[in-house]
């Protein structure tokens, strides 16, 4: 080591030598495009998504309507573009809340252990017993349909999934020597938890959030499909799958099909990204 350290050559940042990761690049691009669509929907959409034209219902693709129209004669492309907004906002809120709550609970129970850990872990076990959808339906039954009730309910049911994974990693980190060294250095518990443990569980957190995002989107779309979430005529993919159903038998499957396709593309992008990040994470620096 002593001989190695003599010529103090600057090591090039490892990132610059890494070959481009096509999975991350392509899924990242898809997600970025979806976000851009959501933000710039009014600029991108060729038509008003709520403008109905009874004279042009269930049309196929044409110059006026690139993806055709639905059973009310509304422009499908515009509805899909506007639909990105609510379809992404819901899962994003769910994951944001579940990650925040889950991480705080996970790190606290990893740090303090004892009764706090036991109470949190048992509560998580109890929540595991209820499927997220049932929970969401219950919330809708109590507070009425819309975006808020299913989002809150699904946030609660997603929290234990994130909590459990992060708790395991935080517990591992907590028992590593560097934490003992911090402790002996007189650092406060808050500093150790936020600046050391949280920073070390961050990669896992990102992976879990990305993976859960796909599931949350499917769950929320299912809630909307069942008519318990946002209500028609609001453009939202789950709602569109549902409202397009009646036209399928009439030979016009485009509304359900296209909305379903958007859901699939989004979920697959998030899952592939999460999987790839997870497998890459195994190779990252670990003490």
């Amino acid at each position, binding site marked *: 080591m002593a001989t190695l350290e003599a010529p103090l050559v600057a090591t090039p940042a490892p990132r610059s030598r890494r070959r481009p990761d096509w999975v991350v690049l392509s899924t990242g691009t898809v997600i970025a495009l979806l976000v851009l669509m959501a933000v710039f929907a009014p600029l991108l959409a060729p038509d008003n998504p709520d403008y109905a034209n009874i004279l042009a219902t269930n049309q196929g693709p044409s110059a006026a309507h690139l993806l055709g129209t639905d059973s009310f004669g509304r422009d499908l492309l515009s509805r899909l573009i506007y639909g990105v907004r609510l379809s992404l906002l819901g899962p994003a809120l769910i994951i944001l809340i579940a990650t925040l709550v889950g991480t705080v609970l996970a790190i606290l129970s990893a740090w303090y252990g004892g009764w706090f850990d036991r109470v949190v872990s048992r509560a998580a076990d109890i929540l595991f017993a209820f499927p997220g959808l049932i929970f969401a339906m219950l919330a809708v039954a109590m507070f009425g349909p819309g975006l808020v009730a299913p989002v809150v309910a699904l946030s609660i049911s997603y929290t234990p999934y994130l909590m459990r994974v992060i708790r395991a990693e935080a517990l591992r980190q907590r028992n590593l020597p560097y934490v003992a060294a911090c402790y*002996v250095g007189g650092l406060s518990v808050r500093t150790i938890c936020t600046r050391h443990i949280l920073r070390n569980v961050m990669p896992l957190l990102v992976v879990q959030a990305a993976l859960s995002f796909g599931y949350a989107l499917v769950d929320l779309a299912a809630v909307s499909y069942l008519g318990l979430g946002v209500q028609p005529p609001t453009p939202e993919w789950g709602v569109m799958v549902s409202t397009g159903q009646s036209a399928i038998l009439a030979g016009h499957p485009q509304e359900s099909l296209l909305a379903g396709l958007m859901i699939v593309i989004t979920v697959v992008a998030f899952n592939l990204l999460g999987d790839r990040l997870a497998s890459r994470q195994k190779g990252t*620096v670990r003490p």
Partner: protein
Amino acid sequence: MNVLEINHLAVELPVEGALRRVLHDVTLSIGPGEAVGLVGESGAGKSMASRAVIRLLPAGAAVHGDIRYSGDSVLAMDRAALRHFRTHDVAMVFQDPRAHINPVRTIGDFLLEALLERGERRDDARAAVIAVLAAVGVSEPERRLRQFPHELSGGLLQRVMIAAALAVSPTLLLADEPTTALDVTTQSDVMVILDARRRERGLAMLFVTHDLELAAAVCDRIAVLYAGFLVEDAPAGDLHRNLRHPYTAGLLASRPDPVAPRPRLAAIPGRPLSAFEVGAGCAFAPRCAFAVERCHLERPELRVLDAGRVACHRAEELAGQLALSPTPGGSE
């Protein structure tokens, strides 16, 4: 007043539900600016003793006896006092720098953290840290602050850890095998730095190691641990010349001799006892060539003899008999 006083320290750790004794009886004091080497085999309780000083023991550990820092009982400290003790008075250098430094934070974050936590201004803390880094022989300290632990070699990282310990200007430095994870040439560099800083600042140091020679070279006094007992405590220069305890004599005889190599390395017969296996008598008695009946029945107290202290019933009788040779008929 002594910087550190350890009186009849005993530690029990929970193992499979029951408390197991890992440290039986350690009495030790360190004066201002004094370096004491704590030596012993693996499992003798060296690290446990040093960790007890800073109250870094596994949950559920039972500590008996008394540890005093400048007269204040460390074991009785409340949370705030303990934090003050850890942030201002004592610092620890660990064995494996790579495991004891958070890998995802920069060297700068690591070094500044303790100072910022004490409420020092960032600019002052930064200047202090850069000065300490330069003092421990780290080149280009400003650039190092931006680097991550994996970009530094083991020796360099250990210097960073020593810098972190010195940056808080402690009065007591606990060094838990600071050179074990390093290769030999780096080892000596690190020891020279540690020793120089200690003399410069009048640091009291507890140096835990299993390297008797290294301890004798840098410490004022050597304390020898065996199976959780402090068996001997002697001035470093005196240890070789004036053999008092059969275990220490055996340890010294077991070193390879670079001048006149023996065909076979001498060894103390038997295997080292774990602290919890010790019977009623002297812990070393089963392996001791000089043990008599009393040694197996009665535990020897640590008592003052010449310039040091020794825990052996026959220390006076054996004076002069113990030689730097393998115990008679000992080696296989």
